[in-house]
């Protein structure tokens, strides 16, 4: 049975290590926060200028001056700090964030990613996505294995405008996990969702990858 969204996020959470500084994208990646193993200290950054994100506020705690990059109300925790957008992206671009979990529309077998625009649809903008994929040390993508029309989202080449080239280290879908080291060589199928077979994955994946 394929992983559901929370199970996908839980699988991504297994990539975290104690002491990591992590940026989580909007959508499914935000579910990773709820799956950090107890006892592990992971500090979340949001690119609008906070290190040390706490949970959503209670009604009494809501503060219009305290939001995340998804513009949702949040809270601070012990050890938090605030900084400007320039300082925030200095942190991101300078390789100080250990890992980012992002959603995607497409990932290519060479590590390219497309997650910011669909030609013909209204373009909302890339926000911080291009900076994150270019700057964070390790990029984990969380996405459905196939799109609504059934086509593979892990592809030979991206068809949509790129967010970054050769930047993806791991792809976690509802069916399987693909990974590679040092952004070199092909991705390798390293894990299957329970009950999903390697053949099923093969059949629904356009990208070339190495079998486990």
């Amino acid at each position, binding site marked *: 049975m394929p992983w559901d969204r929370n199970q996908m996020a839980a699988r991504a959470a297994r990539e975290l290590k104690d002491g990591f500084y992590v940026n989580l994208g909007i959508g499914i990646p935000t579910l990773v926060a709820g799956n950090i193993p107890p006892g592990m200290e992971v500090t979340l950054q949001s690119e609008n200028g906070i290190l040390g994100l706490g949970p959503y506020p209670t009604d009494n705690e809501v503060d219009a001056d305290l939001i995340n990059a998804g513009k949702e109300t949040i809270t601070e925790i012990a050890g938090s700090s605030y900084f400007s*957008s320039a300082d925030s992206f200095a942190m991101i671009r300078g390789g100080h964030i250990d890992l980012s979990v992002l959603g995607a529309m497409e990932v290519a077998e060479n590590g390219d990613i497309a997650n910011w625009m669909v030609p013909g649809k209204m373009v909302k903008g890339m926000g911080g996505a291009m900076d994150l994929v270019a700057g964070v040390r390790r990029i984990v993508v969380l996405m459905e294995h196939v799109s609504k029309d059934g086509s593979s989202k892990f592809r030979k080449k991206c068809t949509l405008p790129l967010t970054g080239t050769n930047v993806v280290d791991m792809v976690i879908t509802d069916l399987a996990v693909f990974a590679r080291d040092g952004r070199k060589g092909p991705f390798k199928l390293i894990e299957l969702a329970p009950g999903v077979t390697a053949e099923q994955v093969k059949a629904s994946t356009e990208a070339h990858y190495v079998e486990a």
Partner: protein
Amino acid sequence: MAKKLHDGAKQALAGLLFDGMTIAAGGFGLCGIPETLILAIRDSGVKNLTVISNNAGVDDWGLGLLLRTRQVKKMISSYVGENKEFERQFLAKELELEFNPQGTLAERLRAGGAGIAGFYTRTGVGTVVAEGKDTKVFNGETYILETGLVADLAIVKAWRGDSFGNLLYRKTARNFNPMVATCSRNTVAEIEELVPSIDANLVHTPSIYVRRMIKAASNEKRIEKRITRKEA
């Protein structure tokens, strides 16, 4: 010294507005936006503006107000998804739009304020953002050249200010405000609270960057996505 604190937004903007000018505005979404100054710019009727701001407000608040009145010719932004009037004008080709990656936009504003004419970043390499831009290889990796941005007028929102013009921002309402404050010779700040002094060691924006200042008349601070959890 010429007093920096002015009675109102109209007085603080007097002589600083002209058609076709470039205005940089602080804020992220509706958080930390100079609400009072935006309203005054709308009321001034100044037009053909190029506006540098990470976002473009919503239909009825923030920079969306200047779009509605058709005072904006061009936006330089990273994300504009929250504004239907924006979409309409853009699709009708009534509005120019230059997308910058958010970190590139922040750094371009800092560079403009810091006398850095251009800088090399990996952000956007191999994407549409790189089109037409110079590239250079450093240590085997390709970087693209981005340029500094300056504005004819910069408007920022701060939490606290002293009479010298030193500013403090609050939490994530800081966002783009500190760089925007530096990117123009004409920076006007609106502050929520006037305080007698700010600890010199803890100032966010030094007084040198603030030419004029007002007490904010509008502090609505609309929340775009109010998400809460239950009390424990």
